[in-house]
């Protein structure tokens, strides 16, 4: 059973690779499942079995890259000595490294994601589970190790960080600097902000400039990405409570 499972996995990945290649050349819209099947050397019924629609391929792509990312992180010997910020930053950077190989393909996904009618954003959000799981775990460990104290909206943090992740990818797609140095700096700098937020008690006390920044910039910026998904309205309500409490 296990053997056939992994054979199945392999076929699925083969289809994915063919799809990425074809979509890179022809564009997402112009590549049909039929052609993808042909390219991957599988029958039409087979491909529909794996991917009932093209969107599912995108979903699987994002998920697959996250699985590979997670494997890389697991192989970092001293990963558990990394600070929370370093762990999160490594997650973002490693994922981006995979995207780099398929930059044109990822560009297409992102373009669709930001075209309101396409509904791809929801799709991308469906693929986030793995990501949120990883972030959650890092957070839990950091809290347990008393690296940070428990943030008031802990359950929303992974979601927020996913939003941030999408923002980073969007930035990277637009980045035309040499070796994407601007993205590297953008990540390093913004992770500094994330770190400061997680470490300070801004989130608890909610009474200084940091929160103002957080409130005005991060939330308004992220709202764009969040569409109807997520517990954003809830977060805002919570934030509102905190603010009013002061």
């Amino acid at each position, binding site marked *: 059973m296990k053997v056939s499972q992994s054979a199945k996995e392999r076929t699925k990945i083969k289809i994915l690779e063919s799809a990425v290649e074809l979509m890179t050349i022809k564009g997402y819209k112009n590549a049909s499942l039929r052609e993808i099947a042909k390219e991957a050397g599988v029958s039409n019924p087979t491909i529909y079995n794996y991917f009932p629609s093209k969107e599912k391929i995108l979903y699987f792509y994002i998920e697959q890259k996250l699985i590979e990312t997670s494997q890389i992180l697991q192989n970092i010997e001293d990963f558990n000595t990394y600070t929370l910020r*370093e762990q999160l930053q490594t997650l973002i950077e490693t994922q981006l490294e995979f995207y780099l190989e398929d930059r044109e393909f990822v560009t297409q996904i992102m373009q669709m994601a930001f075209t309101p009618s396409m509904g791809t954003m929801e799709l991308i959000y469906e693929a986030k589970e793995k990501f949120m799981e990883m972030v959650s775990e890092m957070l839990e460990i950091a809290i347990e190790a008393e690296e940070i104290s428990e943030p008031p909206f802990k359950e929303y943090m992974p979601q927020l960080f996913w939003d941030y992740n999408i923002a980073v990818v969007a930035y990277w797609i637009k980045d035309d600097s040499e*070796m994407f140095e*601007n993205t590297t700096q953008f990540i*390093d700098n913004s992770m*500094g902000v994330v770190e400061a937020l997680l470490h300070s008690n801004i989130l608890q006390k909610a009474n200084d400039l940091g929160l103002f920044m957080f409130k005005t910039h991060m939330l308004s910026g992220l709202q764009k990405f969040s569409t109807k998904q997520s517990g954003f309205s809830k977060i805002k309500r919570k934030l509102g409570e905190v603010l009013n409490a002061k």
Partner: protein
Amino acid sequence: MQNKIPTSKRARGAVVGKAIFKIGVAQSKGVVKRAFMSKKRKEESQKETHEEIAKVIIESLGTLKGISVKIAQQVALGLPFLPKEYLDEISKSFNSIPPINRALIRKIIKQELGAYPQEVYESFDTEAFGAASLGQVHLATLLSEKFAVKVQYPGIAKSIDSDMAVLKFALTRFAKGGNVDHLIEEVQARLHEEVDYEIEADNTEYFYKNLKHDLIVIPEIERQYSTTKVLTSSFLEGRSFKEFLDSNPSQEERNHYAQLIFDSFFIGLYHIQMIHADPNPGNFIFMENKKLGVIDFGCVKKLDDDFLTSFSKLHVSLMDKLPDEEITKQYAELRMIDDDTPKKMLEFYQEVIKPLDRIYIEIFNEDFYDFKENSDFSERGFNIIMEVQKKSITAVHNMNEEYIFVDRTLLGYYAMFEKMEACIDTRFAQRLVRY
């Protein structure tokens, strides 16, 4: 947010613009105030203005951080007429590069060398052991040998030009119509060279192959593990300058190391015609068995035969105390005194240059020079430079650049010897100067 280095064009443009605007304000305030002041107050106010301007420049360089440290070094070496206030402010910006955390180190090494640090090297210490002006230095091993891996923070190279735009604006104002363009260009070109670790690798290899001295150790570069942003060189184990001094070394040890530093400079000058032009104590490692490690060849200066010939001739003339008229002629040949009537040229020499060369040549007057007895040497030197600067600004941009480099660097070394309270034997150097 204090680690932010804005490099997107708009952000940097905005910061540069802000700085230029602020400089304008600081200057005009000074001018307006000065119009109503007595002469004495005027001088003070001018100083205040300089300080204010320097602060504004540094503030903006501070936001642009990236390169300010190197600028400071370069400005100090290349623009010796800059008021002390500027240099002080600039040097305050030292060590302003944000730390490179482990996530970033992984990325940079992967990008530059094709694999993660632990895969590239046998072992790689993710905690940096040294701070470099543009990044940090990590310990790694290859085939059980220790190596120092210097890693540059991303995005430095592209921040040079906008940082220099700020500086150019400020300096142009300071130079009061004097032309600083070529100096700025020179500094800018040097900065571009300095951020390129491949050039540093070339220089290091040049010294490694050519500077032959039993007690001087120069790191070996691992070319396959070096790029423009990563430099892997053999690790030189030993004490830092501070650790050396703190260990309360004997007079003999002090003299020994100072002598090595002094001699290595003159060997560089005369035997291999390239000097290590960064007289920073951090660049020397006090190793076992009386050996001296010399690192950091990011800032070097090549010197040609013509320069060496006139430099030697001039120094010999100075040592032999030839008449001022003769010396003036030689400075004119070095393009440090503009063509004019002989009388004017002599005046310029006696007023501007002579006080400076007096101090440089003092070292060579005897076979030995004791910095313990002359512990005010660099202070005197600095004050004289300040005096000269007050007298003449327009003339300095004519200064022979190599000449300035050599003397500036020597002055830096002398400041170290002073701290070491060492006595140096100048006979070897004198022989070289006299060929």
